[in-house]
């Protein structure tokens, strides 16, 4: 009994801390503040831009994560460990460094060439790229684990039954990976929603132009409007929690990060 008590006390400390943060946020603001925040033109723009960019990032992340996850799970090759580490770089790098690196990338000759045809930095495109850089790494990790957990014997049987690799992938592997895909998509969306550091550096924090919800929190904080910042934070907490619940209820329990 003392053993479970000690474990329970240690474990519950962290859970209490998370819940205490939420309660503190709620107690700092009121429904009126939240309503006021939702009525603000700037915040409405930020919500709309966040929803659009997060959704685009989610789709891009899943589209890229599926083939990478598949190759990493199904094939052995010489530089696999190196590539695996490369794919984790966006997860371990400080967000500001990712933003700075993207900014520098678009100062190089190829970056400048792209910029001369389509302006990227400090535009909405840069928000999607900054979100994608981090969110995709989580989607890739999720899809890698998802495909690893599906026995490749089924694909082999499908090959003997007359499928080519593409048919085996589409008819056998992909349908079984649907929960993993949902998990990857949800995580990518949630990560994109919370991304701030790379966006601040790579896209700037211009009201009604490159303002997503984390930017709003930053801008409201910087002018001392704490109530509005907290109200926007609560909107983000609610959206993030909703996504996590979707993952828990419908996603692949074994791949949910």
């Amino acid at each position, binding site marked *: 009994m003392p053993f479970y008590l000690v474990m329970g006390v240690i474990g519950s400390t962290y859970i209490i801390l998370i819940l205490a943060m939420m309660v503190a946020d709620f107690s700092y603001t009121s429904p009126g503040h939240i309503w006021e925040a939702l009525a603000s033109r700037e915040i409405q723009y930020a919500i709309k831009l966040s929803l659009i960019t997060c959704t685009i990032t989610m789709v891009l992340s899943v589209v890229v994560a599926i083939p990478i996850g598949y190759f990493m799970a199904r094939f052995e090759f010489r530089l696999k460990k190196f590539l695996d580490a490369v794919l984790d770089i966006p997860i371990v790098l400080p967000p500001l460094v990712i933003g700075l690196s993207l900014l520098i990338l678009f100062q190089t000759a190829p970056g400048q060439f792209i910029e001369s045809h389509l302006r990227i930095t400090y535009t909405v495109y840069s928000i999607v790229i900054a979100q994608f850089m981090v969110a995709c790494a989580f989607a890739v990790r999720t899809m890698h684990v998802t495909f690893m957990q599906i026995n490749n*014997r089924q694909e082999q049987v499908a090959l*003997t039954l*007359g499928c080519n690799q593409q048919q085996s992938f589409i008819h056998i592997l992909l349908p079984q990976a649907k929960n993993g895909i949902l998990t990857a998509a949800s995580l990518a969306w949630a990560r994109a929603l919370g991304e701030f550091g790379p966006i601040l550096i790579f896209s700037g924090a211009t009201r009604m132009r490159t303002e997503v919800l984390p930017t709003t929190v930053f801008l409201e904080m910087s002018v001392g409007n704490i109530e509005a910042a907290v109200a926007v934070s609560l909107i983000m907490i609610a959206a993030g929690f909703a996504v996590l619940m979707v993952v828990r209820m419908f996603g692949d329990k074994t791949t949910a990060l």
Partner: protein
Amino acid sequence: MIHCKDLYIEQGSFELSNVNFKIEKGEYVVLMGKTGCGKSTILEAICGLRKIQQGEIWLNGINITDLVPGLRGIGYVPQDGALFKNMTIAENIGFALKIRKWNKTQIDQRVTELAVMLGIDHLLKRGAHNLSGGERQRVALGRALSYYPHILCLDEPLSALDENTKEDMYNLLIKLKDKLKITVLHVSHSQLEASKLANRVLRLEKGKLLEVSKKK
């Protein structure tokens, strides 16, 4: 008839060399050997699932060494059945026919025919989850037989079954052998399975086919 000529298969530090054997049409051959000796490797090479470094595989007078698995006409049943979990039993059995673009009526007819033969017609609408070991292997057999393969390759299909289910499966495999006159290469480490089912037994030891015994 299947003929493996001088097969050499290397996989890391493991290798099989000089593998030569023939299986005549309608023969039921059991390939025996200790766990990890390479029995399944030979089976997978015949099915086209494993690359061979040297040698040739001939099926009914055609060199199939470089043919993709789906064009070989070989039915494959792995140890765990490997049923497609996203499909019903009927869809599992009819999958190869759907890929071959048979029409729905033809597929339904063939699936029902096989299901009745294998005693699983009551399972057709069920999903591939929660089947017993015997049911799973019957479905896997039906799926492998659906497109009239030249040869059936069974990779330890009975090893995970209990004794009673094994007995039922022996009877079923003997019935299939007699009724369909199909050529079978059956990998096993069980002497009992070999004695019950085989026309001929091949034994693989230390990377080489050492012994060939014929059933009286």
